[in-house]
């Protein structure tokens, strides 16, 4: 069975500071990993995904995540956050049938 652990439930961070959101997974099948973002009162949006190939994947708004098979991790990073990055972030792994197993989420609060 697949599972995802997000080690931090909340991460406060000052504007323009770096942030790292940790995600560890377990999976018995080929690993496809995703980060989704949920802005306040909105639905889930895909931030980035790892399917195969380069272990470092990037999003259009400055986030990046690195797939580390030996550590079974897929941590999300951004070198400099903005107020608009305040949101909840979910790490997910594809399970059988292409359904997603989500982590518990990490709330990022960016302070001015």
């Amino acid at each position, binding site marked *: 069975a697949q599972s995802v652990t997000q080690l931090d439930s909340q991460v406060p961070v000052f504007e323009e500071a770096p942030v790292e959101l940790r995600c560890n997974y377990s999976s018995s099948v080929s690993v*496809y990993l*995703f980060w*989704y973002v949920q802005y306040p009162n*909105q*639905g*889930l*949006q*895909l931030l980035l*995904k790892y*399917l195969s190939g380069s272990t470092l994947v990037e999003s259009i708004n400055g986030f990046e995540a690195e797939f580390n098979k030996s550590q079974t991790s897929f941590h999300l990073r951004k070198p400099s956050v903005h107020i608009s990055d305040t949101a909840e972030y*979910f790490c997910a792994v*594809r*399970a059988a*049938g*292409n*359904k*997603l*197993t*989500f*982590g*518990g*989420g990490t709330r990022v609060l960016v302070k001015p």
Partner: protein
Amino acid sequence: GAGVSQSPSNKVTEKGKDVELRCDPISGHTALYWYRQSLGQGLEFLIYFQGNSAPDKSGLPSDRFSAERTGGSVSTLTIQRTQQEDSAVYLCASRGRTDYEQYFGPGTRLTVT
């Protein structure tokens, strides 16, 4: 193009009543998923439809929950005899045949009083 839409956006119902939640997936998407997002349980998979195959109902929490997908497009999630613990945001997602990404709708917030 149009994304996944869900209706209603909010639903308040009394305990014991039945509710129906609707999902309109992206046109042409063959796979459709229902998830539930609640404070205590996080994001949970409920049910999955893929084309004409039998649905994967392994995530449904009780027999009060059911879903159908008509004509390979619109889906309805039905909760019978609602309980307070059913209060949550119900999210629908769809996926194209060759995609791995799921596209989520805005959700229906269900409150059982």
